[in-house]
């Protein structure tokens, strides 16, 4: 186990990513005899961005299979050999429900009939609701308390109902008119099936990619994770070294916490002034509504204000009485007692939501990290032999709250660029990829939106009210006006309480009681904060462990190494916050007797939350958690 960093070598071009190495580094690990295979294009991660890329490529080939540009160089006479490796056990697993404007998706499928996609619906009614706190446990500022009281007093005049105030006007930047409500699991399955049917693309789920293959700064393919290893990665029964997939072009779309993207950031650093500092945990349930429900498919609610002022929420209605309901817990919520599952349970019980959800049944549950830095977190998009697309490439627009369509569109842009280069017979160099893919992206609506959104969320570092003002300023002026802010690194956004402070002692007591009782830390912390206990009904209100099985259908194949590692265990022992434990979406990280966090791979849903929910840093830049390529996770396809 090694930790390497060099304090004197901080990069002038942003943060010192190149000075830091993961706990186990594919570049420095002992040499073993690895099989390798050559393909034309190797892809890491199958999500909307990769869907857009592969759809563009395969549609062009299907339209003209005789086009010599599509002849494989590694298998002459055959079409391009395009292989995509996905970490999750199925391409429908481990993703989320969304509402999207779908302009990029519709451009790929001009005759799209949304009824063909299970759980898909055209967007209908959209509402934005400010939720009052009906319980009194929410941590609200004085300003907010005064505002809440005023709203309650003027309730009947303003239309406050069920402790919710509906904004009479919704700014255009929040609208998703003409868009789609989708289950990303079902959408990915639908796209993947079509891609596979073309015969040009092979998509392999259950195949985590551990790292890119570097030759200097050039990327020459992907290395798959070792199989048949113990939890520490040492060869065990049925050991099979991860194969090297060598390719002229490597497409990186493995999301915000993907191992390949992280390795590129480490190796190349980030462009000057860029940092991946803003994150959120999106956690949701898919609920089957009771038969008498009259919510129409396509209905979209956005909420804010509850269960904590920093937590935004949503409700999207799918066909067949299914709804996606969830919350976003952001990194700028400085409370070290961050959690998501318990908050989600309180959220769905808010009167305005409970009115429609009561008597519903949990069908699915899941969570994922969202990279919310937008352009501020954009990495180097291209280099010799590689290009980055999707959320991990900083495409998410945090003003409009939209990521899927942007990700898909970056995939289209890369697809078009690759076709252009293939037809011109040009190699996939940094220069050629930059002049095609980057140029397309910079000239597109994705870039324009990203620039408008660039500073839209700055105000949130100073609280919800200032954040909303900043967002409105940026949204209504097309990004011309925005609040300024210094956004600290993720570990510095977590508020630290001195261990002898009242809050610090209270947390310590709660943690000790939780440990003695075997009770989840997040649960104990929120109960101590005055949140009422959850009255389990065995159907919708269930323990988090039950949600793993009944909702997420979580499981992990044996034979893979632990993918969550703690760099400096001494830092963990003395860490009083243990935010990695309270925030863990699957209770896969628990507090051990010796103060060390314990990780259970079988419960991990690969949300990546631990990566940014850690208050400790061994090098002043990165958190103390190393999140590597791993297998398993959610098996629900209804997310």
């Amino acid at each position, binding site marked *: 186990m090694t930790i390497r960093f060099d304090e004197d070598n901080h990069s002038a071009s942003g943060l010192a990513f190149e000075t830091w190495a993961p706990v186990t580094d594919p570049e420095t690990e002992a040499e073993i005899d690895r099989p390798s295979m050559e393909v034309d294009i190797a892809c890491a991660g199958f999500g909307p961005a990769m869907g857009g890329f592969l759809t563009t490529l395969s549609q062009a080939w299907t339209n003209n299979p005789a086009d010599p540009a599509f002849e494989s160089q590694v298998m002459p006479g055959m079409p391009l050999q395009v292989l995509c490796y996905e970490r999750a056990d199925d391409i429908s697993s481990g993703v989320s429900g969304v509402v999207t404007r779908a302009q990029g998706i519709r451009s790929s499928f001009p005759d799209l009939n949304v009824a063909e996609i299970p759980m898909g619906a055209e967007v209908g009614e959209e509402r934005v609701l400010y939720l009052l706190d009906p319980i009194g446990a929410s941590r609200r500022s004085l300003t907010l308390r005064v505002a809440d009281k005023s709203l309650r007093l003027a309730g009947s005049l303003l239309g406050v109902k069920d402790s919710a105030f509906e904004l009479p006007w919704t700014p255009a930047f929040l609208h998703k008119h003409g868009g789609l409500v989708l289950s990303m699991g079902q959408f990915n399955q639908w796209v993947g099936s079509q891609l596979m049917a073309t015969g040009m693309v092979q998509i392999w789920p259950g195949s985590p990619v551990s790292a890119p293959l570097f030759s200097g700064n050039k990327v020459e393919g992907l290395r798959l994770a070792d199989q048949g290893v113990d939890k520490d990665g040492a060869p065990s029964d049925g050991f099979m070294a991860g194969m090297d997939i060598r390719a002229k072009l490597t497409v990186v779309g493995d999301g915000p916490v993907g191992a390949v993207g992280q390795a590129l950031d480490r190796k190349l650093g980030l462009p000057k002034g860029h940092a991946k500092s803003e994150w959120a945990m999106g956690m949701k349930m898919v609920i089957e509504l009771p038969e008498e429900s009259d919510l129409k498919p396509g209905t979209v609610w956005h909420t804010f204000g509850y269960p904590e002022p920093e937590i935004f929420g949503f409700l999207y209605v799918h066909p067949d009485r299914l709804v996606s309901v969830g919350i976003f817990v952001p990194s700028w919520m400085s409370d070290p007692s961050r959690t998501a599952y318990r908050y989600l349970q309180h959220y769905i019980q808010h009167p305005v939501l409970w009115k429609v959800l009561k008597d519903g049944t949990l069908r699915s549950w899941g969570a994922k990290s969202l990279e919310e830095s937008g352009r501020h977190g954009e990495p180097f998009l291209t280099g010799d032999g590689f290009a980055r697309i999707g959320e991990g490439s900083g495409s998410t627009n945090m003003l409009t709250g939209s990521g899927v369509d942007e990700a898909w569109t970056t995939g289209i842009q890369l697809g078009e660029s690759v076709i252009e280069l293939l037809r011109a017979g040009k190699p996939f160099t940094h220069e050629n990829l930059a002049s095609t893919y980057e140029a397309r992206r910079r000239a597109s609506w994705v870039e324009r939106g990203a620039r408008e959104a660039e500073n839209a969320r700055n105000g949130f570092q100073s609280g919800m009210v200032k954040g909303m003002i900043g967002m409105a300023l940026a949204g209504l002026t097309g990004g011309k006006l925005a609040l300024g802010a210094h956004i600290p690194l993720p570990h510095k956004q977590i508020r630290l309480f001195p261990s002898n402070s009242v809050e610090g002692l209270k947390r310590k007591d709660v943690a000790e009681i939780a440990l003695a009782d075997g009770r989840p830390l997040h649960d104990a912390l929120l109960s101590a904060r005055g949140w009422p206990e959850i009255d389990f009904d065995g159907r919708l209100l269930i323990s988090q462990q*039950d949600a793993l099985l009944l909702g997420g259908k979580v499981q992990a194949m044996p034979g893979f190494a632990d993918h969550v590692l703690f760099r400096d265990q001494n830092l963990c022992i003395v860490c009083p916050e243990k935010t990695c434990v309270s925030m863990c979406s699957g209770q896969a990280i628990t507090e051990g007797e010796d103060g060390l966090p314990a990780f259970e791979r079988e419960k991990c849903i690969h949300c990546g939350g631990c990566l940014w929910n850690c208050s400790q840093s061994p090098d002043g830049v990165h958190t103390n958690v190393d999140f590597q390529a791993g297998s398993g996770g959610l098996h629900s396809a209804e997310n």
Partner: protein
Amino acid sequence: MANPVHIVVCAGIVPDPLQTLEPLSTPNGPGIKNEMVLPAVLDPWAASALYEAGALAAKNPGSKVWLVSLGPKGKLQQVMMTVAQKVPFELVPIDGPIGGFPDAHSTAAVLAATIDALPGLDKTKLLLFGGWESATRGAGVTLQLVGERLGITEQFQGVDEIDLRDDGSFTVLERVEGGKHQVSVCSAAPAVLGWATGNLPEPRNNPQVGMANMRSIMPALQKAKPTTLEPNGLSYISTSLPKQQRVTRVEKNLSPDEIAAELVDWIGAE
């Protein structure tokens, strides 16, 4: 000395076992709610048969494995994405219904006719593999019926091991009561082996195997012919899932012995 065999594995697809299933009635008989939406896997019992077939073929150069699978072609394609990296095989897809409710005789007739027509299959070397049970409805007779239709009289069920000898004879271990195995010796193929779990772990994903398999899988799926299965008078009075109960309770004061006693009572009450 190598002893090449021709192994045909009959394997259906079923919903991923972790999914929450809900039976319902359709105009065509019983079904599973949203079954086409749920992720599917190769029937776990038959998957064991496929892995055993792969291992047996690897030990006997010149052998070949066919995977004959009946199900909606779109679902078969999805399942192949998770299966095709495991062992080398040639897929023989039959585009048919899903759900495990069709009549076993109709299913067996289609499977037998398909196997009978397999180009290059030498029936004197044929080992017909499948699961002895199914994760769908568990009729437990389909494989035997396929064997009967193909005229194979040597049939074994609940198989955990096969040991193929150089002279073509083989020893089979079949599960019997009491956790024991019955040992049978068969002089030669053909034979039907309905597998229990076998002794092999699930093979690791091998990208080279996947890439080679997929070259024949996609064209085979494109050519798969739609097939309907006759009900043969079969009708269902009712369908239900095995009763499951989940009770979540936080107990702070009970001893492990008391908890164990309560669990025993709870189970006994079922």
